Each structure stands twice: as structure tokens, then as C-alpha cells.
């Protein structure tokens, strides 16, 4: 397998790019595997990679109804951060960020993680105090975090709306180690990494049923035949409820909603950080891709939907938010907008857990924060499947937390999925 490095890039430049291998094989499904992961999105691929790397298991298939990384992996706004404060979330996302920091090296694939700082704008003393609680918690748990005053913010991001904003900007809460990454590269990097360990990534293979005997899953039925499995993991955010019905386990604390994302025409550098704000019922986040497009997004479309198509009201809403903080964006043109379907959970937090079926494991409920969670999600889901018990870090990412009354709701929005994010 040809390593990705500058040497080989130069060599192949001279020899006509003939020396590169396939990034991943296109294998036929075997009759059975030790572990079958359903869903070759970011989390499913990461899970396979860490099962192989951390736990030495190689007899793994990742089955995917479409193309790997074809769902939300390629539809998100690529923000990576760990500014979570609730018990459970805090250490999980920080672990994820640590994995991100070395991910390109670990995968030998440049995922372009750019730690360019994540800046949450603050608009009132009350908001500053609320942010202080979060960022103090980060500092006390060994994660860098800062509050910037207005002068610092003006110096670092000079062209925000400091003069006429409806909600005057008074400062910012900042995580310098946060930033953005190249979303597709993460899917491809994990796929290539897993493939090199011998994991079979089987695309265009839709799961149509789940065979069970004596309370155990024995195989997944797919459009490419039945595939036996000693253990099965679901990682199909957006479509979790559909698979869940196949195993007849009843309902889930999940609703599927859609989120739109936006990119502008490519521009020379205009914004060097990730900038976020939420005030007056608006929610907005923006960064500039390395290619030059302004990548941004806002709230859900507010109604449950499985359609990967958005509607105009949120487009307007997001455009309003965009120009309200970056008034120069008025003339910048929107190049594309698209949408993805999200597992919205009842508290905005995910599930990495065992299920009522002994050898079936669930990874779901990522709301619209799944991208940043990718490495840790794969790490802990692999650990769960390999060892059949949750690591203490994810002990509250189970389906039983609502019965127990455990609250890991970062927004405090309550059991209404559309209010989380």
C-alpha cells in the first residue's frame, strides 16, 4: 500500500500518478463476519477502524446502502470543537478533540483539521456569565478556553458588525484548539484506514431486515444477500428509527429532522476563524473552507422530515443571521444549499449503547453535532462492541437515561427534539 507523503506525491507526479492504490477495495460480502457495522458514514467507518486498530478485530464488514460517506458525512459544516460542559459530554468531546489533533497522522490521510479557533460571540452580560460557566468548566478540566473582551475580538476579527448590530457584540468565548476539517477526507481516511486493516466496506448494500434467533441477531438481510454476524452495530444517524423497526424493538427517543447547510462562491481569505452566535432566537455558525467558500448554517427546518431538501424560510433566516454579524457578506453569493437528515434526540445528546438484543449495539442520536464527535464515537463504540460493556465516559449515552432522569441537555431545551442542536 503506497503511503501518502510528499515523497510519493513527487514520485507520482513524475511517473504519471500510476503508483497509487485504490483507497479501498470493493469486496463482495462474505457469508459472515465477526462484526457487521451498518452504515458507512463517519461513525460507522471510525468504529470499524478502531475495532481493528484498538481491539485487533479484523473480520469486520461495514455495509452501506449508498456510497460511503454519502450521508451527513458530506453535508455538514465541518466544525470541530469540544466546548461541552455537562457531565458525560465534557470528557467525551474532549477525547474526540484530542483524537482529531493527530487524526491525519493516524490515518495517513490529510483530514485538514485546522485549529483556527472557535469564537462564540457574546451579546449581553448575562450571556457572558452563562458562557463563563461553560468555559470555566473547560479550563478546570484541562481544556483551553478564553473569554475575549471587545478589544481583543475587534483585533482578531475586525470586520464583524460592531457598529449597527441589533444585538451589540460585547466579546466572545473562544476555544483556540477548535476549528474545522475537511469532512469528506475524514470519511475517506477512516475508510482507507479500515480497509488496510482488512475491513470489508460493502457499498450499495442496503439492509432490508435483521434476522434473529433466541433473542440474538444472527444475520443482516441485505440487497446483496444475507450476511451473518456474531455482533451487529447500527450507525445510521438519520435513519436509525427505520432499522430499529426491523428489529422490532419499539420506539426510540429520536425524531428525524433536516438541517440545511450553505456554501458561498470561493473567495480569497475573508474569515480566519469559526464564528458562531446565538441570540434573539437566531443560531448561526460560519467558517471559510480552504477552497475559499464561506460554509455556514443555522437552525433546523423546524419540522420533522426525512427529505434531503430544504425550504426557503430557513434560507432567509440564515442569510439574515449571516449579514447581521458579517455585513460584508451582503454581496457574497450563495453557491449551493442542501440539507441532511438528523437523528434529533430528546436531550440533544447521543446514544452509544447496548440494546435489549444481546449482540446488537446502537450508535445514534447525534443531533447536528455528529461531525466533531466522529473519532470518539468510533473509539467508544468500538470499545463497547469489543468488550460488551460501556466505558464510564459513555455510561450516560444509553437509552435508559430518560427513565433514570439523567440530564445531559446542553441547551436545557427539554424533551422537544427540534429545539436541540
Amino acid at each position, binding site marked *: 500500500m503506497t503511503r501518502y507523503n510528499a515523497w510519493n506525491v513527487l514520485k507520482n507526479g513524475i511517473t504519471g500518478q500510476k503508483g497509487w492504490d485504490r483507497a479501498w477495495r470493493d469486496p463482495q460480502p462474505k457469508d459472515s463476519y465477526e462484526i457487521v457495522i451498518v452504515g458507512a458514514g463517519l461513525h460507522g467507518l471510525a468504529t470499524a477502524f478502531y475495532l481493528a486498530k484498538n481491539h485487533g478485530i479484523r473480520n469486520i464488514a461495514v455495509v452501506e446502502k449508498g456510497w460511503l460517506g454519502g450521508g451527513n458525512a458530506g453535508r455538514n459544516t465541518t466544525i470541530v470543537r469540544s466546548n461541552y460542559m455537562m457531565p458525560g459530554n465534557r470528557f467525551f468531546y474532549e477525547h474526540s478533540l484530542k483524537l482529531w489533533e493527530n487524526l491525519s497522522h493516524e490515518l495517513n490521510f490529510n483530514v485538514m483539521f485546522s485549529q483556527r479557533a472557535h469564537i462564540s460571540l457574546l451579546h449581553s452580560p448575562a450571556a457572558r456569565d452563562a458562557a463563563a460557566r461553560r468555559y470555566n468548566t473547560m479550563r478546570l478540566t484541562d481544556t483551553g478556553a478564553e473569554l475575549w473582551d471587545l478589544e481583543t475580538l475587534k483585533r482578531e476579527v475586525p470586520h464583524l458588525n460592531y457598529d449597527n448590530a441589533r444585538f451589540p457584540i460585547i466579546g466572545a468565548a473562544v476555544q483556540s484548539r477548535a476549528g474545522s476539517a475537511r469532512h469528506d477526507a475524514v470519511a475517506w481516511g477512516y475508510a482507507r484506514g479500515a480497509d488496510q486493516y482488512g475491513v470489508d466496506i460493502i457499498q450499495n448494500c442496503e439492509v432490508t431486515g435483521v434476522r434473529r434467533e433466541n433473542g440474538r441477531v444472527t444475520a443482516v438481510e441485505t440487497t446483496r444477500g444475507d450476511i451473518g454476524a456474531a455482533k451487529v452495530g447500527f450507525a445510521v444517524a438519520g435513519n436509525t428509527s427505520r432499522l430499529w423497526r426491523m428489529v422490532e424493538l*419499539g420506539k426510540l427517543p429520536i425524531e428525524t429532522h433536516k438541517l440545511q447547510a450553505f456554501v458561498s462562491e470561493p473567495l480569497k481569505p475573508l474569515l480566519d476563524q469559526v464564528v458562531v452566535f446565538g441570540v434573539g432566537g437566531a443560531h448561526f455558525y460560519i467558517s471559510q473552507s480552504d477552497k475559499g467558500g464561506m460554509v455556514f448554517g443555522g437552525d433546523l427546518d423546524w419540522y*420533522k422530515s426525512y*427529505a434531503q431538501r430544504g*425550504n426557503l424560510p430557513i434560507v432567509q433566516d440564515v442569510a439574515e443571521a449571516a449579514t447581521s454579524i458579517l455585513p460584508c457578506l451582503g454581496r457574497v453569493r450563495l453557491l449551493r444549499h442542501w440539507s441532511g437528515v438528523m437523528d434529533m434526540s430528546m436531550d440533544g445528546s447521543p446514544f452509544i449503547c447496548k440494546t435489549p438484543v444481546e449482540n446488537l449495539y446502537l450508535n445514534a442520536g447525534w443531533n447536528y453535532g455528529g461531525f466533531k464527535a466522529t473519532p470518539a464515537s468510533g473509539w467508544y463504540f468500538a470499545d463497547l462492541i469489543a468488550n460488551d460493556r460501556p466505558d464510564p465516559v459513555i455510561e450516560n449515552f444509553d437509552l435508559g437515561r430518560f427513565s433514570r432522569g439523567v440530564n445531559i441537555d446542553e441547551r436545557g431545551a427539554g424533551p422537544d427534539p427540534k429545539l436541540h442542536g
Partner: protein
Amino acid sequence: MIRIKCPFCGERDHSEFTYGGDASIVYPALDATAEEWHEAVFMRENIRGMQTETWHHVNGCRMWLIVQRDTMTHEIRSVRPAHEGLAGVLEDDR
């Protein structure tokens, strides 16, 4: 833009309304058990296809409506007032 035919106001953009949730949920009595309430508050069928759901005409007549809508295509099959008494009044008017 989804267009919702409010029985009171006529056909309007969905941006005048807010989506409520799954209308098939039957909320238990206040003195029901925590298990029953857990089921109603936290658990969802999450139908992909035609589902019965509530919408609130929040920037209109403020009526809660029961809407049959396909969650894949957004096609709406029917809209009626959530309050059965009001639904009955509308029937009588016809």
C-alpha cells in the same frame, strides 16, 4: 415551502406555523405512572412516510391543527382542528 390549508384561515406558508409533534401520542392521565409518561414524552415512532402530527398556527389564528403529512415528500393529505369540538363546528358549517 410547505403550504398548509388552515381550516380557519385558508392556505398559508408553513412559516406561519410551528410544528408540534407526533399527534398519535396519547398523553396519559396526570396521575399515571412514570413509565407511561416516559413512553409518551420521550419515545417516538418517527415515521418515514405519512404521519399524523400537530401544527400550531402561531402567526395566524393560534389554532392547533392535526395534519396528515408525508415526512418524505412533505405532501399533506388532510388538515383539521386538533380540538374535536371545533372540528365539529366546521363540519356543521359545511
